[in-house]
């Protein structure tokens, strides 16, 4: 069985035709994980028993001749900041090392109704803060394409799991590129839906106005199949939106009807020329096949990263205030003999429980929001955020979709950017605007440069997720024809 190339559709057919049971499929993936995850470290924990139990249930239904849902019986990997009731959820942080989720995230509830199989929880940068998984408190994940290199982040474990054949698809979360960038680095598809399309209830919050859950998969069809299940309004997330969604599976789009914008600000200094060449050749191919290509401008792109590094840490400092060493998580409250006061418990529990990058961002946010600096930093950033959003609103009056590279470089080596946080932040330069504007974005693999995957990003209009996926499918098909 070629686990590395098994798609949802193929797995579904195999189960339906009884060529394979869900228990067998689950065991094959578990076996592969046990053989190879020692080198890759995509997983923080495995759900062997629960996964096998759930698979048995699906097999019983199949043997009774009942129809099964598209995702039923198919193993998925879940980023370890998404809650599965009764299962450890750590956000790759020491502060949650032994924390058991008391409830299901809404996306998990929805997938359980489909009888999806959760094979394990994947590694990530601590609290999703990072672009390489090197910030995980439990050690980094290695890129299955090249073990000397990072898988990207923060959803690096999820992208690596899909690439390595450890699960058919995975869930990640994306605050500034954390689904798309690792998908690009590992050579898989990563989709960040429109802000509000998917409920964030049960996702451990990083920056609440930017966070969004989405799928990582082997192709666009699979990403769409997962998106269809997890999207929708939820009473427990007041930012989720009630919409009548288009059907992804009805008539495909005609390439001659598509208008594609190429933002000139994304093809400037800092972009690896080989990546530029790859993206440009896809653009030429699209034009040759009849798509309309237009050069556009997103003039405030230059300030997106600076805006992000104000708004994100501000929200981080507020969200992570809940970790206090009192209600749950790591605490020094019983650990020291000297009688501590409450302030000491806070200082020590948080000081020891959080890693360096998390503390860096909490402090940045605290400073930015403190009296005397609030207007100069935070208010200003919220205003520039509006200008960035208006850039996209203007662009989408002219074009259906915007095409860019996912990242300025391919996967880098371990340790290359850990000493200088700012150099790590620049890895997100092409992805953060999408979160600031709330629009959907998808990364699909284009080619390999010296053996390393290159990601192409397509950006759509707010809540035009289905159209974006349909266009992504066309681009995916063209890329296949090119190679």
């Amino acid at each position, binding site marked *: 069985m070629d686990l590395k190339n098994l798609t949802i559709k193929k797995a579904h057919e195999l189960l339906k035709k009884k060529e394979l049971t869900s228990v067998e499929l689950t065991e094959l993936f578990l076996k592969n994980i046990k053989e190879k995850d020692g080198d890759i470290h995509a997983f923080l924990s495995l759900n062997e028993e629960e996964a096998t139990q759930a698979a048995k249930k699906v097999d019983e239904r199949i043997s009774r001749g009942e129809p099964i849902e598209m995702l039923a019986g198919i193993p998925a990997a879940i980023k370890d900041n998404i809650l599965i009731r009764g299962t450890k959820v750590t956000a790759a942080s020491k502060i949650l090392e032994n924390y058991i989720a008391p409830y299901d995230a809404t996306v998990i509830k929805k997938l359980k109704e489909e009888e999806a199989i959760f094979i394990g929880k994947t590694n990530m940068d601590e609290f999703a803060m990072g672009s390489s998984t090197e910030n995980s408190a439990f050690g980094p994940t290695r890129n299955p394409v090249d073990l000397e290199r990072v898988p990207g982040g923060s959803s690096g474990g999820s992208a690596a799991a899909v690439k390595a054949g450890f699960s058919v698809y995975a869930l990640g979360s994306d605050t500034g590129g954390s689904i798309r960038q690792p998908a690009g680095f590992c050579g898989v598809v990563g989709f960040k839906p429109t802000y509000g399309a998917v409920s964030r209830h049960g996702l451990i919050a990083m920056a609440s106005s930017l966070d969004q859950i989405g799928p990582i998969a082997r192709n666009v069809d699979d990403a769409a199949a997962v998106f269809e299940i997890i999207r929708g309004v939820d009473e427990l997330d007041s930012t989720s939106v009630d919409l009548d969604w288009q059907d992804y599976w009805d008539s495909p789009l005609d390439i001659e009807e598509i208008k594609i914008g190429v933002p000139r600000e994304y093809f400037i200094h800092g972009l690896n020329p080989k990546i530029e060449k790859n993206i440009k050749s896809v653009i030429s191919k699209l034009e040759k096949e009849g798509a309309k290509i237009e050069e556009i401008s997103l003039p405030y792109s230059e300030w997106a990263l600076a805006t992000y590094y104000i708004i994100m840490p501000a929200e981080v400092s507020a969200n992570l205030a809940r970790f206090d060493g009192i209600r749950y998580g790591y605490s020094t409250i019983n650990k020291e003999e000297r009688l501590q006061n409450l302030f000491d418990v806070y200082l020590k529990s948080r000081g020891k429980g959080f890693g360096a990058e998390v503390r860096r961002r909490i402090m940045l946010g605290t400073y930015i929001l403190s009296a005397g600096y609030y207007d100069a930093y935070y208010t200003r*950033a919220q205003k520039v955020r509006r200008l960035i959003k208006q850039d996209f609103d203007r662009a989408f009056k002219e074009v259906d979709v915007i095409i860019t590279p996912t990242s300025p470089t391919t996967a880098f080596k371990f340790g290359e950017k850990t000493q200088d946080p700012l150099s790590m932040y620049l890895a997100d330069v092409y992805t953060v605007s999408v979160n600031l504007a709330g629009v959907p974005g998808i990364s699909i693999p284009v080619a390999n440069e010296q053996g390393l995957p290159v990601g192409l990003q397509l950006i759509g209009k707010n809540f035009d997720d289905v159209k974006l996926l349909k266009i992504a499918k066309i681009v995916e098909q063209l890329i296949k024809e090119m190679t």
Partner: protein
Amino acid sequence: MALTKKEVEKIAELARLGLAEKEKEKFAEDLSSVLGYVQKLSEVNIEKVESITGGTSLESVMRKDDETKCISDPQMRKQILSASPNREDDYFKVPSILD
């Protein structure tokens, strides 16, 4: 934009974060470099621009305060309480807050 060690200590105190003595210099350096970078926003003319206050244009979304939506069964309640490191019956126990 260079933060002093003293300023870092003050921020860490506001954020309720314990820092080891030897980390303070490195944090001062890192935070200064990021704050230096975000100064870039002073180049943008923001006159007459209104702030964005969230990720969507939704306003005042209401729902009934129904605890069964969040804590749906006694088992869940038990799990939530038992996650506390220091508890007495159904209360979280904290050290004295007055010296």
